[in-house]
Each structure stands twice: as C-alpha cells, then as structure tokens.
C-alpha cells in the first residue's frame, strides 16, 4: 500500500487517527498545522514515525513546503522512489 502517493496518504491518515487528539474527519487535503493543530516539533516527530515505516529520511528543508497530508505523501513517495 506504500507504493503510491494515495497508499502513503492512507497510511499517514491511519497513523494520525491512532492519536485520539486528531480530528476524526481528516482526509488527504487536511492541512497538517491548521487542521491538526500540530506545532513544528509535533510535525517533525510525526514525520520521524513515518520515515521508519517507509525506510526513508526526510530532510527538514522538504518539510517547509508541505501543507497537507497529500503533500507529505507526495514528498515521501518521491524520496522512496529515489531511494529504491
């Protein structure tokens, strides 16, 4: 399920929903900071969990351009393809 952007997006949402503080109605277009109320540290720590799942490392500068869950999924997918 992690071979496509959609698959990665689904995996991210599943992981986010494991946190009871995250709103239940999130989707790929949800904004990570605004809709999920994540601060910068929370974003970095969450990305670390996903990195392990996909065996990639996301450089911090890439996070600056990420707004939505789908943006994050796209970034991870690109890194995973480059790393394969």
């Amino acid at each position, binding site marked *: 399920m992690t071979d496509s952007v959609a698959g990665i997006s689904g995996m991210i949402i599943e992981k986010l929903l494991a946190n009871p503080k995250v709103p239940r109605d999130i989707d790929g277009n949800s904004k990570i900071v605004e809709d999920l109320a994540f*601060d*910068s*540290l*929370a974003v*970095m*720590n969450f990305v*670390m969990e996903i990195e392990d799942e996909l*065996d*990639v*490392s*996301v*450089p*911090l*500068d890439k996070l600056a351009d990420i707004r939505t869950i789908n943006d994050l999924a796209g970034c991870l997918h690109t890194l995973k393809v480059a*790393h394969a």
Partner: protein
Amino acid sequence: MTDIFAKHQGLREAYEGLTAASPRNPFEVVIERPISASVGIIEGRETLLFGTNNYLGLSQSKKAIEAAVETAETMGVGTTGSRIANGTFGLHRKLEAKLAEFFRRKHCMVFSTGYQANLGTISALVNKDDVLLLDADSHASIYDGAKLSGAQVIRFRHNDPVDLEKRLARLKDHQGAKLIIAEGIYSMTGNVAPLDKFVDIKTRHGAYLMADEAHSFGVLGAHGRGVAEMQGCEDGIDFVVGTFSKSLGTVGGYCVTNHDGVDLMRLCSRPYMFTASLPPEIIAATMAALEDMQARPELRTKLQENAARLHAGLQKVGLKTGEHVSPVVAVTLETVDQAVGFWTALLENGVYVNLSLPPATPDNRPLLRCSVMAAHSPEEIDRAVALFGEVARHFGL
C-alpha cells in the same frame, strides 16, 4: 497596510493565556542582584538559585573578578570591532592557545557567545551539498546553525545509536560530507549522550562528529573536558563546541579541533566574522576562571555529589525526573497550567528554577528545570527538595 505583527497572533494568544493564569510573567523574572553564586534577590526576597547553569559557581570567582577589573583598567571595556578587523587583541589569541592546550587539540576558535559558536562552526563546516545528522533534541543554536549552513538536515532519535546508524546507511551513496552533531549533556533534560557509540558509527560510515559540550565542559571527565573525556572517546570527536557562560561563569563560546582546515573558518564563518569580539575583561575573567577550574578539581566532585543529592531527593518526594544523574535535573509535569502553578509556588517560597514549556521541551510536556552547583550547600539542596515535596503534595502529585 498589512499588519507586520499579524503572524504573531498565535504566539500572543498562547502568551496571554499563560500570563492570565500567572501572577507574573515567567519569562521576565528579574534577579535584582546576586548575593552569592547560590542566592540572589528576586522580588525583594532572598531566593535560592537553582536555575542558573553556574555549575561551578565561578560567576563569583574572586580570581576572575580581579582579572576582569585589572584588565578593564588597563585595556578598557571593549574591542569595538570584529575578529577579522580590529577586534583581535593579544588576549584573544592567548585564550585560544589556553583552550587548545586544555582540550589537547591543535586549534581553537573563540566566538562571542556559545550560540554563535554553534552557528559559526556548523555554517562554516557544511553547505548545501552536505548532510547534517542532528539528534532530535538538539539545542536551538544547532538547528539555527544548520539552517544557516544550507545543508540537508536529517534528525535521528534522541541518544539512539541504532537510529543514527539506520539513517547513515540510507545515505551510503551520498557524495557530500556527513556531519553528525550531538550534545554532551542535553540542556533541558540532563540526559548524557552515548558519544562513544556515535564515534564507532561515524568511523564505520565515513562521517564527521561534532559534540556540543556546553553543559558538560568543566562538569564531566577527570579533567573537566566533558562527556567525551568521561567516555574515553575524545580522539574520535572531530569538533568540540562549547560555551564559557556555564561552568566558567562568563560569556563566549569556542570550537576546538585537530583538523588544520579550521583556520580557514576564520575567513568564512559569518557569525565569527561579522560581530564584535569579546571585550578584554571578559577574556581575562574567562582565562582566570579556567585556571581556577583546573586548580580546583574538588569543585567537580562536589558538583557530582550535589547533583546526586538533588536527583535522589526529587525522586524520593515522588517527582518524575530523568534517569541520568547530571547537574541538570528536570522534573517533568503533565500540563502547562500545573507547571506554571508549581513554578510560581516555588518562586514565592524562595526557590528559583527554570520553567521550560513546549515546544522548547522534548516530548511536548513542561519541565521544571533545575541546575545544581558546586556552590550549593547540602542544606540548600535539602531546603529546595523539601519545598518541591510540599508543593507537589499541595497539587496532589
């Protein structure tokens, strides 16, 4: 016209929420004056200082004070220039030579603050073609130095050699330089880094290793050279960065190394080049404090005893502290309101500690951060612990 401060609205709300629940602004505590290393006047009251990072009490070193006074009288109070222009006095070179000798390294660069030492070293060592591997709980000065460098930044899990190695393995085809950065003692939690394990890893993966010993310089190791000395792995650390504003009680920072290439950093490290150099009286006081520290190893023994006493005492009254016994002892609480109330009660009853709030803390939880000193008496530590216990009971903890 766009309100230039609109971007701070979230910060304003958080700040107002915090100060509404507190009788004072926790970020604007004024120490009206110190009476000694361990006692200061705050709000007109004599207050025990348990949050000053003044580990050896040398901010009040008689020798350092005398050296500063004498130097100010003979050389004035400032250099009025940067190190690459008119701001290098003989004293700056002398301090660099003394520090290089102390750390048994070939080279030393002195910076105007510890913050700038990290900014200036990191930004000169790596650029956009390189990768930095930072411990996730790194100090802001390391993150800011990383940003200034333009290098790719990858975080590894705090104090986790396995995670670091995993991330280095992913970089096996990377062509640029790889620099790992870890701290000796972590400033918020007092955790001690496994630098010896990081040395093994960096050797296997062809990376460089920089250690920020800001909180461990003068504190750990038989001679006070920090965690690397304590763990017997100094030869594997490429760059050691630190500050004078903790164990030496003054201000300023340094980078020491055996790499000859560091000399060119003086011509490309912007935080070194484009700021006024340290004033002569500060350099003189720093050298005197360094001599004082070397002449009195018993200060380190006393500090360790005090750290163990505070750490055990806080655990005994049922508070949650880190596992490492170090001069930084942080009590973890669950909510910001609880932490502000606890901190206020401590201050109003004569004990000052640092209130540390997320996101400046790991794990998103607030900390009451204590730093212990060689200058604390056992009675002062016991008084602080007893007060922590009383306040904890009051809050039902």
